[in-house]
């Protein structure tokens, strides 16, 4: 497997705050890599360093075989970057926005490529509309089209679906999977763990460090625990009881608890006993495969 991005001990501080604390990992060709974590984990800072908007305090990276610190200009020709804000010229039309980005990338005869991209993002009917007059989802797709006009080998997407409605979000993911088919490597950040599940590999990031970096399945397996989902009533009392009287990791989701245990046979009776003593009614229970969310919280608590 050829790795297109090699991150080596990248570090960035903002005064006292260490935003990114010496992270290292690699992103392979043709994969969709997800950098996952809560707000303030250092995801955006990492990405901004990789696209050349921020200079790292320490460490380096190699992107498409070019050195990030010394060959920034070579990298710029071959990557695309979609910032969180889908920055576009609101007073230019869809066509004009794409044309402008084609021009500054030095793309000649961009018309055909533009038509493809508009077709691909289903923006063709709106091509003469000003960007300011587009919906959030359409803005996002236009911004993506602008970053794709010069056929980049890697695209960096910073929380691309934040603030986009669910339908547009699904559309967007379809577009991304088509890009993957074309061999584009995607590096994205996301705070949503359901989106992370769709990535070929993820890096879980928290407080500037990488907690785990693997395929979603391997990450989940690495937890080596079973998760029992218990629907019960009153759920808040149950949550507080489990939290106070046992060492189990417990999360509350609406009317149910997810309790992570080492061994169902041994641990479940303890919980059941606790419930009975406190007159909590158990309505239903089942063993579920841990979600990335379970895993994330498990690792964060460690």
């Amino acid at each position, binding site marked *: 497997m050829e790795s297109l991005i090699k991150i080596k001990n990248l570090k960035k501080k903002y005064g006292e705050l260490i935003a990114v604390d010496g992270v290292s990992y690699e992103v392979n060709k043709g994969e969709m890599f997800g950098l996952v974590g809560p707000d303030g984990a250092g995801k955006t800072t990492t990405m901004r360093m990789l696209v050349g908007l921020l200079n790292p305090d320490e460490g380096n990276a190699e992107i498409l075989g070019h050195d990030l610190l010394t060959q920034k200009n070579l990298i*710029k020709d071959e*990557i695309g970057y979609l*910032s969180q804000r889908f920055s*576009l*010229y609101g007073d230019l039309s869809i066509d004009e926005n794409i044309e*402008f980005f084609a*021009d500054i990338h030095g793309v000649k005869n961009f018309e055909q490529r533009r038509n493809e991209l508009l077709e691909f993002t289903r923006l063709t009917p709106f091509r003469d509309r000003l960007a300011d007059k587009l919906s959030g989802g359409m803005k996002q797709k236009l911004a993506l089209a602008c970053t794709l006009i010069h056929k980049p080998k890697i695209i960096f997407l910073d929380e691309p679906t934040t603030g986009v409605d669910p339908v547009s979000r699904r559309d967007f993911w379809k577009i991304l999977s088509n890009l993957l088919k074309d061999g584009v490597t995607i590096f994205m950040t996301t705070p949503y763990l359901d989106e992370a599940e769709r990535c070929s590999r993820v890096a879980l990031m928290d407080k500037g460090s990488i907690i785990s970096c693997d395929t979603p399945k391997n990450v989940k397996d690495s937890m080596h625990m079973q998760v029992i989902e218990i629907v019960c009533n009153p759920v808040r009392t149950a949550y507080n009881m489990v939290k106070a009287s046992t060492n189990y990791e417990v999360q509350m989701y609406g009317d149910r608890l997810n309790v992570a245990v080492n061994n169902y046979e041994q641990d479940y009776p303890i919980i059941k006993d606790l419930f009975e003593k406190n007159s909590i009614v158990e309505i239903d229970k089942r063993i579920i495969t841990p979600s990335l969310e379970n895993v994330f919280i498990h690792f964060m608590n460690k």
Partner: protein
Amino acid sequence: MKTIYEFIIKELLQLKRDKKMMAVIFIAPILQLILLGYAANMDVEIIHTAIFDQDKTETSREFIRSFEKSGYFSIDYYAESYDEVTELIDKAKTIVTIVIPKDFEKKLNKRETVSIQTLFEGSDGNKSSIALGYIQAVTNRYSQNIVSDIKDKYGMKLPIAGSLVPEVRVWYNPEMKTRNYMVPGIMGLILMITTLSLMSMAVVREREIGTLEQLIVTPLKSYQLILGKLVPFTIVGFVVMLIVMVIMTQWFGIIIRGSRLFLLFASLLFVLSNLGWGLLISTISKTQNQAMMISVFAVMMPMIYLSGFAFPIDNMPQIVQYITYLIPLRYFITILHGIVLKGTGFSSLWPEALILFVMGVGILTLSALRFSKKIE
């Protein structure tokens, strides 16, 4: 090269779409010039006058008539007491009150010297001093007439007193109209306001909407970005300049005596430093509002005050006068006055032009360096 060209096209397109901005850029200067052209008029045309005639004789009335005849004085009030005079002054009804003493006729007949008291409402010092000049002129003529009357009447030989009569000839602005002097200055002001504030906001706007970041990630070089911003605003500056020149000549009838080509060339030099300042402000500001406030209060207002447009530089304290040497507008206004009023050309205005060029290139280079360093 092509990239810069495309960037310029994009800028002009955006400008064209921004209807409000277009109105501000092209209509505001016209209104400003017309308004200021009329408002910035310090000529004193009518002096509102009150008379306190204590003498009330044939001679005193004749003396008052000589003021009326001069055409500058409008005698609005006749006061009967000093209290009334004070009240008129307090209420700013008159600029000047002339008090004729009781023994006016008697003394004159005895060929004695008479003193006339004139009281000024001096809150506008400029106006009062002009009024004073007129009063002296009228009084002088009146006393000369008395002398010649006496000569005629009595055929007396009066002692020969040499009298000097200055024959005043005003060059360059023969009507001595403040407007002729102010309007070229306003032209400089408008050119500065338009180009400086446009430039300062343009770069910050890209930062505000996030496109600046997007541009940094592309292979676009910072010099291409800067040129892409400079050229469109230089074009805008020139169009504004042409509009203002047309109004100056057609509306106000102020003739440009010197070379229009040199005027435009000097404007280009002046625009350089404005764009440089604008770019510098945009490297300091985070938002368009900040950029606007900084350019108005920290840059443009001091420049206007120190340029000699509003107050004569010669009247400023020495230390402040040194500071004015750093103000590009000062040199541009000198050039404008030179070309428009005096018809002087490059041969006598080249030092100012050279200074503008050096300043423009200097500040532009400085801010361009600061800008590129900031985005890398």
